[in-house]
């Protein structure tokens, strides 16, 4: 089992004729993801690596019965792409695009929720249910089918952790990169709930970083609602206040959002926090 995506997910790639969209559409298809179509206004009727291209999302959904989309369009057009997907009836919208203005995300998110759909990202690597479906840009070869759920605000740090899990024989049910921006779609609380309810997941890794207080709220949620073992890693203990550390959302503002506060919040509810990524498999095994 897995969360959000599996063998039955039917994916449209928005911006499939762009460089990144085209490259990753082929990667996803090669992995076995059910890539049923792509969109690119004005290029409807063409094929991209054998995948049919449509002018509009509405047409794409009508022709393919797609339920999931992944967005690779440039930042100025990302809001429109997210809203177009929701309007066409897509249930899960994954926005990879980096640098989307925050207020665009606020507006698109509000619309997506009113349509009853879910958003992941923007500025995220997407998600993977190993052996079933890959939606996004994660390097599939480091993942292995299994039962550990992974939630992360980061890209390569996630891969580092997953690599350690896989090397230790711990495969993954689903790994989700929620995105590094201040405002993004699905976050810790919703994903923890999904993993808690997923019979195919028996442990959870949460990878956080400085900025905001979502980790603190996740710690409270784990205390009250999560029975499965959770291990945590928090990046940015050495980050100076007021500086954005790569991700737009990774910033300590007015002394809050520090790694120390987040680590303390997890430790206070008995969730082990790894000092380095390689400790995570042992922390999870220790709790089983």
């Amino acid at each position, binding site marked *: 089992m897995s969360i959000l995506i599996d063998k039955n997910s039917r994916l449209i790639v928005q911006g499939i004729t762009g460089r990144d969209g085209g490259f990753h559409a082929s*990667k996803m298809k090669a992995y076995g993801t059910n890539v049923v179509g792509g969109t690119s206004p004005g290029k409807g009727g063409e094929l991209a690596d054998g995948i049919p291209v449509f002018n509009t999302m509405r047409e794409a959904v009508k022709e393919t019965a797609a339920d999931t989309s992944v967005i690779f369009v440039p*930042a*100025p057009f990302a809001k429109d792409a997210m809203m177009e997907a929701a309007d066409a009836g897509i249930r899960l919208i994954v926005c990879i695009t980096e*640098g*989307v*203005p*925050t*207020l*665009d*995300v*606020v*507006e698109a*998110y*509000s*619309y997506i929720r009113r349509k009853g759909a879910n958003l992941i990202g923007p500025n995220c690597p997407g998600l993977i249910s190993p052996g079933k479906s890959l939606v996004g*840009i*994660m*390097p599939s070869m*480091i993942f292995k089918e299994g039962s550990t759920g992974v939630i*992360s*605000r*980061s*890209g*390569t*740090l*996630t*891969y*580092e952790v997953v*690599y350690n899990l896989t090397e230790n024989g711990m495969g993954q049910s689903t790994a989700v990169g929620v995105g*590094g921006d*201040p*405002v993004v779609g699905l976050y810790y609380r919703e994903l923890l709930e999904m993993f808690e309810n997923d019979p195919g997941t028996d442990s959870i890794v949460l990878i956080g*970083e*400085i900025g*905001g*207080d*979502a980790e603190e709220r996740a710690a409270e949620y784990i205390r009250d609602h999560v029975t499965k073992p959770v291990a945590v*890693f928090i*990046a*940015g*203990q*050495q*980050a*100076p206040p007021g*500086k*954005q*550390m*790569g*991700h*737009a*959302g*990774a910033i300590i503002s*007015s*002394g*809050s959002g520090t*790694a120390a506060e987040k680590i303390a919040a997890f430790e206070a509810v008995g969730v082990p926090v790894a*000092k*380095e*990524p*390689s400790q995570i498999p042992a922390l999870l095994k220790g709790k089983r």
Partner: protein
Amino acid sequence: MKIHEYQAKEMFATYGIPVDKSIVCRSVEDAVKAYEQLDAQKVIVKAQVHAGGRGKAGGVKLANGEAELRKHAAAILGMDIKGFTVDRILVGQAVNIDKEYYVSYVIDRSSKAAILMVSREGGMDIEEVARTTPEKIHKFVIDPSIGVPDFLAREAAFKLFDDITQVRKAVPVFQKLYQLLIETDASLAEINPLVLTTEGEIMAIDAKMTFDDNALYRHPKIAALNEPSEEEKKEQSAKSKGFSYVHLGGDIGCMVNGAGLAMATMDMIKLYGGNPANFLDIGGSSNPTKVIEAMKLLLSDKNVKVVLINIFGGITRCDDVAKGLLEAFHQIKTGVPIVIRLTGTNEKEGRALLQGTHFHVAETMGEATQMAVKISK
């Protein structure tokens, strides 16, 4: 991106938000002229810098008469506030304050929307109020599809004012401030304090705005107000090359692909007793040109004694990364020792390519960090 108080007040005025009468000055002579123009006995002199806590630093003074104005203007111009040298002051008509309030819009991560925050504790450090007496701050989540309708602005205004006359004056201020936030892609629009004058008027006597860097492309006029500090200039130049760079001051230079992994790398350096010189995320790929540019940036910091390169090879496999590194270092001549840690797809092949070179090659993050720390000592 930050702007100065006087620039924010100009925007407020354009949107019809009442502000005190004030003039920005670059010299004592300018200040005297402004004083005559304002035609007031008492004026406030305020340092214009991109830093909070101006008052505590002595950058805000009340002047009664021209002599005092000259004295304060001369003292504040050239003053250092948190590393910023004051080159502009704002001279404003002193207002007869009855009460002070706090009003702001910020983008709230948790509600994924703009929120309006109001408090009767105006003129104070709002973070301090939030910590000690959070119940004194009232928050309203704004639905982006309806913005700030009258009823919502009224509800917020009643948290501050007991008199309907004042509520009626506050409503359009709250609505116009929201309009300003949205139309300029601001991440913060703050009035602290909004004052009620003894004459019964409400007025913003301070103004603070910060803007979303990701949206500056559609606001060229705002982008033109950017005044980066020396450190920010270096960060922005790195950004134009596709890097995220933050100077930290230690002696172990770091080059990492990905922001999360880059943060984790500097944390590990500290964990093993070393001091990271910087945060540097070179982005997802790691082609030779990028590595060369990144090395130039790292080596421009003369404190760097050793460079730690930590690359996760995902879609770009480790053997390709290794070839790229060899190619890059063929062009860079440096005596600074380099520790390389490659992990991910084809990592064994990648490491094999680096064996027998002058690089120190490590397998795990822990091992690489320990090597770098040892060399730095």
